[in-house]
């Protein structure tokens, strides 16, 4: 039974490997051969750069920040801080081009980008941190109830622990 399941898994994996690489080959061919793509090397370079930026910069920075927070913040603030940082990072990653105002360059119609995005991003981030604050307050109350009062810092971190 287990051997049959193992064989089935192996076949699925093999079919997906061949099929998936076929689709990747199709996409690569289109990227290189489609004359309207223009500068297909530019798109491949961007793809690799984004991959490297994520794996070598963004994620290690997030891991390091998590490691630091766990050592510096009281335990009851951690969940709220994590929610706030996650949501803020995503909001800023999305709105980065809006804040940079690069869209007002050439060929920009005047009805494009109609808002004061700095202000709006500030409003959204404020809402995020209000929610984070509520989560922190809630966690603190629960912890106080559970322990009968008093403040607690994070438990002594295990080596390398982060979130």
């Amino acid at each position, binding site marked *: 039974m287990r051997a049959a399941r193992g064989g089935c898994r192996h076949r*699925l*994996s093999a*079919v*997906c*490997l061949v099929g*998936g*690489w076929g*689709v*990747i*080959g*199709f*996409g*690569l061919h*289109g*990227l290189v051969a*489609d004359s*309207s*793509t223009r*500068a*297909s090397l530019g*798109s491949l370079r*961007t*793809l690799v750069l*984004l*991959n490297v930026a994520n*794996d070598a910069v963004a*994620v290690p920075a*997030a*891991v390091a920040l998590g490691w630091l927070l766990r050592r510096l913040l009281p*335990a*009851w603030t*951690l969940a709220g801080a*994590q*929610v706030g940082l*996650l*949501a803020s990072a*995503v*909001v800023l990653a*999305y*709105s980065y*081009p809006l804040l*940079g105002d*690069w*869209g*007002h360059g050439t*060929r920009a*119609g005047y*009805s494009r*980008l*109609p808002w004061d995005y700095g202000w709006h*991003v500030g*409003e*959204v981030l404020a809402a995020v941190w209000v929610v984070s604050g509520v*989560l922190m307050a809630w*966690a603190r109350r*629960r912890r106080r109830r559970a322990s009968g009062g008093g403040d607690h810092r*994070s438990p002594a971190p295990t*080596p390398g622990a*982060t*979130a």
Partner: protein
Amino acid sequence: MDAGRRRHVTAAGRVAGRRRADWVQERASSPLHHEWVATVLGVSLGIAFALCFLTGIVDHLAQHPPSWFHLPTRPVNLYGINEAVHVLTGIASIPLLLAKLWTVWPRLFTWPPVRGLAHALERLSLLALVGGSLFQLFTGVANIDYWYSSMPFFFPTAHFWVAWLVVGGLVVHVGAKAPTAADALAVGPGSPASSVGTAAPSGGLTRRGFIGATFATGGLLVATVVGESVTPLRKLALLAPRNPTVGPASLPVNESAAQARVTAAALDPGYVLTVGGNCRMPRSFSLAALRRLPQRSAGLAITCTEGWIAPAQWRGVPLRTLLRLAGAAPDAAVRVESLEAQHRLYSSSVVDPAHIQDPDTLLALELNGRALDLDHGFPVRLIAPDRPGVEQTKWLARVIVL
């Protein structure tokens, strides 16, 4: 270097590599770097990417239609729904992708890095999957925010072809991880995520809390953008690149007459619209002559591939009426050409017979009860149901029966 010494150096390198991998994995360890978290995020991303891919294919075919592809004309908001789903699903994928990549990052350092040809191909396909996913979301956001200078390539086709890389990488990934993912879902989040509430006993987020926060962040982004597609929610659209009511005649404009360099030709009192090509009675119509023809009103939205949808009330001459006057065959297609220089992108478009025969396909002369604004295509523009905004050609000069 003799063989014995070479063996010794290779073995030392292997040990050092494993130590490096252990060091990274130990420091990046967290209850959230967990198989169940990776699986839930992966399945959600898979569904979101599948939706994005399918709607993206429709979008691409609609913008660059091959001869065999025709969007139906009904329901009139079908293309708009497709675009809104495409853009909003893409935006909702941002936190899912970032959380997923964070969750599985320690696995980059598994040792040995490659365990055979199949494993090497599977790991190599991650470049297509991860790099391609980041590329799609980055260029998608850059495009809706008009940050064209960040893309040293033609966005529509690069976005289209890289989507195939992502799908290919996804297929390989599903084949490799499906059994592990099924096991992880069967086992569940385990401790400490099974504790009720947001915070784990150590104080940080539980696994369920982390998933919930990721989904909530996606919801927050969608909520701050959806108003550009759903007009009644426009006041919520704090981070949307468009407000569907801002523009001349309360309708956004992508390219003004000045930018298209048609102002003088469009305002020329001697303007005429010619109807020619494969028809029995080629004709020319002045603006006054067009206004004397039977008119029809239609409520149609301008739907941009960037995801914004702006409903409006149009009035003008049905295209089929004009073609009947020119003696065109009822099953003929036409190409409509703008006053713009014809080498410019989207300066003309082809209208298929089904759209021509639709009574709501108009050569519009009025918008929202007023004469057509110059930036909306004065003196005459095409407006038809279920066509991308770039194919609703403005400042018409010619209608050529094909």
